[in-house]
């Protein structure tokens, strides 16, 4: 196989490297760690983080791309690689990906959703629900054995999940026991009662719930379409898992793309003032005054024209779709940096007058140095809060934009494209609800986790919340 690094893959790995670097930096500074510990103390925050990390793991697996070697062309010199770009996740889910049916089938069904005219062995024709090619294909007598088989598989999955969960718990107790130098049972009791600084009990409980869901699903996915199949017979579980990466990429790369501009321009406008301030304010007022959707629409249409007129730029369809995804991220970044920029400008205006900045100026520090060494570290909490708060909004925006037709490429699997293709399915008779529901539920869990985590981060980092906390404390006291 030949590894392929798409643009968004490269940026995702760059982001991971940045995060690791930041983690290293923070880990060695006690005053920065203190705020993160406050995030760790929040039960909701840690539970949300666990869910987010599960999503991120799926997304990362889906970011390792390669082009498989073709068997047929193996002997040929040069080339010999498929034009289809696959990811590590595809390789894992190959049975699901390959198991396409003819059209819709309900979750866990053994028969197709629609009646078809089939030829019976005796030569006559009949209209009936044909058996699925893959869903429940291992059952000889589907009607009689289906319930038993499903129950058995669920039990097997649950058993596996419990086993995994117990292993995790034992591991956690072991590590904690060594850390505190007490017995394993005592350590486990401490974790369970939440007597740890970091809310490990929330993490383990969330992990348990995730395992209890994932176990049966994985076990059932071996023989059935757990979430059914869509119009062209693709497995909906596969589609939802693939959608995760698109959502994460939109939520993170967009912020990564806009961050340098927002931070540099915001601080420069606030600190330097004068004509620099005027120009930067003019730029963001102008960009802000164009309705976001229309600017995105205009820019995406332009990108699409450029991509369509230059088919020779891209070797594979996946690279073309990836270019559009990246373009969408950049455009979303252009429309979303103004808010952060304005916040940073206002904060810098305040910081500029403080004694430590004036002291730095008195020592003859250059403007760049004051901005970089003295102001930037003191506005980082605003940047961090903005980044985590923006994420969920961007994931939701992707779905809407893809619905309008100015989102990701139609060939990119995302929550938006899933909803878009399924939009008329509720009008069918009987109703096809599974692919819409699967997309919405996955998106809901992702966004909810992101929102809860963002709240925990904001509560830990925002000094302005002191007044609000005082109001709440006064009432409870």
């Amino acid at each position, binding site marked *: 196989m030949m590894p392929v690094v798409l643009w968004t893959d490269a940026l995702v790995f760059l982001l991971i490297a940045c995060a690791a670097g930041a983690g290293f930096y923070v880990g060695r500074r006690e005053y920065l760690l203190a705020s993160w510990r406050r995030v760790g103390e929040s039960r909701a925050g840690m539970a949300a983080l666990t869910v987010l990390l599960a999503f991120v793991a799926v997304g990362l697996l889906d970011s390792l791309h390669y082009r498989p070697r073709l068997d047929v062309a193996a002997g040929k010199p040069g080339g010999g690689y498929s034009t289809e770009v696959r990811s590590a996740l595809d390789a894992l889910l190959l049975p699901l990906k390959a198991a396409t049916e003819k059209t819709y089938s309900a979750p866990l069904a053994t028969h197709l959703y629609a009646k078809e005219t089939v030829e019976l062995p005796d030569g006559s024709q009949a209209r009936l629900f044909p058996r699925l090619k893959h869903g429940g294909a291992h059952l000889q007598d589907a009607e009689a054995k289906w319930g038993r088989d499903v129950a058995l598989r669920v039990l097997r999955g649950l058993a596996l999940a419990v086993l995994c969960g117990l292993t995790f718990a034992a591991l956690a107790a072991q590590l904690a026991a060594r850390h505190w130098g007490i017995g394993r049972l005592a350590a486990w009791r401490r974790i369970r009662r939440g007597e740890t600084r970091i809310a490990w009990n929330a993490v383990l409980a969330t992990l348990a719930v995730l395992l209890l869901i994932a176990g049966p699903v994985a076990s059932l996915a071996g023989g059935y379409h757990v979430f059914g199949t869509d119009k062209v017979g693709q497995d909906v579980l596969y589609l939802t898992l693939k959608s995760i990466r698109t959502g994460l990429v939109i939520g993170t790369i967009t912020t990564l793309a806009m961050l340098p501009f927002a931070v540099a321009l915001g601080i420069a406008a606030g600190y330097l003032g004068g004509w620099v301030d005027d120009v930067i304010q*003019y730029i963001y*007022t*102008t*960009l*802000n*005054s*164009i*309705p976001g*959707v*229309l*600017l995105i*629409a*205009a*820019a995406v*249409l*332009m990108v699409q*024209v*450029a991509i*369509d*007129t230059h088919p020779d730029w891209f070797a594979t369809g996946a690279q073309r779709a990836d270019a559009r995804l990246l373009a969408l991220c950049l455009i979303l970044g252009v429309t979303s940096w103004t808010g952060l920029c304005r916040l940073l400008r206002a904060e810098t205006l305040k910081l500029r007058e403080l004694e430590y900045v004036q002291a730095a100026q008195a020592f003859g520090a250059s403007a760049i140095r004051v901005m970089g060494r003295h102001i930037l570290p003191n506005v980082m909490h605003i940047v961090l809060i903005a980044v985590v708060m923006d994420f*969920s909004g961007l994931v*939701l925006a992707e*779905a*809407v934009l893809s*619905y*309008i*037709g*100015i989102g990701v490429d139609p060939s990119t699997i995302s*929550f938006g494209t899933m*909803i878009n293709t399924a*939009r008329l399915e*509720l*009008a069918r008779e009987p*109703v096809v609800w599974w692919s*819409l529901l699967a997309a*919405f539920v996955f*998106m*809901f869990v992702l*966004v*909810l986790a992101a*929102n*809860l985590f963002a*709240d925990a981060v904001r509560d830990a980092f925002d000094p302005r919340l002191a*007044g*609000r906390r*005082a*109001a*709440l*404390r*006064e*009432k*409870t006291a």
Partner: protein
Amino acid sequence: MLAYIVRRLLYAIPILIGVNLLTFALFFVVNTPDDMARMQLGVKRVTPEAIEKWKAERGYDKPLLYNGAADGAEKVTSTIFFEKSVKLFVFDFGRADDGRDIGHEIRTRMGPSLAIAVPTFVLGLFVTVSFALLLAFFRATYLDFWGVVVCVAMMSVSSLFYIIGGQYLVSKVWHLVPISGYAGGPDAMRFLLLPVLISVVAGIGSSTRWYRTIFLEEIGKDYVRTARAKGLSEPTVLFRHVLKNAMIPILTGVVVVIPLLFMGSLLVESFFGVPGLGSYTIDAINAQDFAVVRSMVFIGSLLYIVGLLLTDLSYTLVDPRVRLQ
């Protein structure tokens, strides 16, 4: 005050010019009219003659900025920039790709857009502010806690889900109102009920939480303690003191969107088949009708600037300390 308004309006001119230049660059420089023609005509049937004809029909066959072939003032006026971009300033939008007058379309479609957007805005503001006050009144109780939980859950649901789910439940299962469509006059009520309701519900989560934060911030301030120390009852403190003072941050977010109500809602209008400006924009995006998109960008920016001005003016109404110079 008047001088301030005039100055702000003058300040709007460079911004509108900037918007205009940006859209001009996006639509004509990054992608030439030739590219647009090729895409509109389809890649297969494209010939140089067809492209020239397409461009001539829509007036894209002139030079971009400077027409050396013309004489006198026409050197500047007989260009794409002047014809397509400068004329927007006098609300001359030209014709859409299907030959209809864009200005006329905008005028007729404004009505249905406002018929949905205004009730949504008023009802939404009333409902969310009431809920937020309720949560602030019961702060630090189980009601408040679960209220916030519900808000966070509601803001994590995609707006598409509210629309699709609402349509399915109310129209298809319960048969209460038509699924989509629009009619003028008193009949409009039946068609407007569901979209307005769904838009309000979809907005509850984030707005309620946001207003609750604002109220709690106000409640933590000293003047509230003074009011309580005077012996005022908690409802009086909330409605007479906190609500009034919280108006300033609330107005910042609210007034700026009032002019944009004209633009309608893209999603709701397209899902419910309402012939408003929102669905007009979506149709134009899907048909890749650049003239319409350009006009809507211009109108949208204009309305946004008006909204900013209105926000500043509204401050003087709710906060006597603010003086505009």
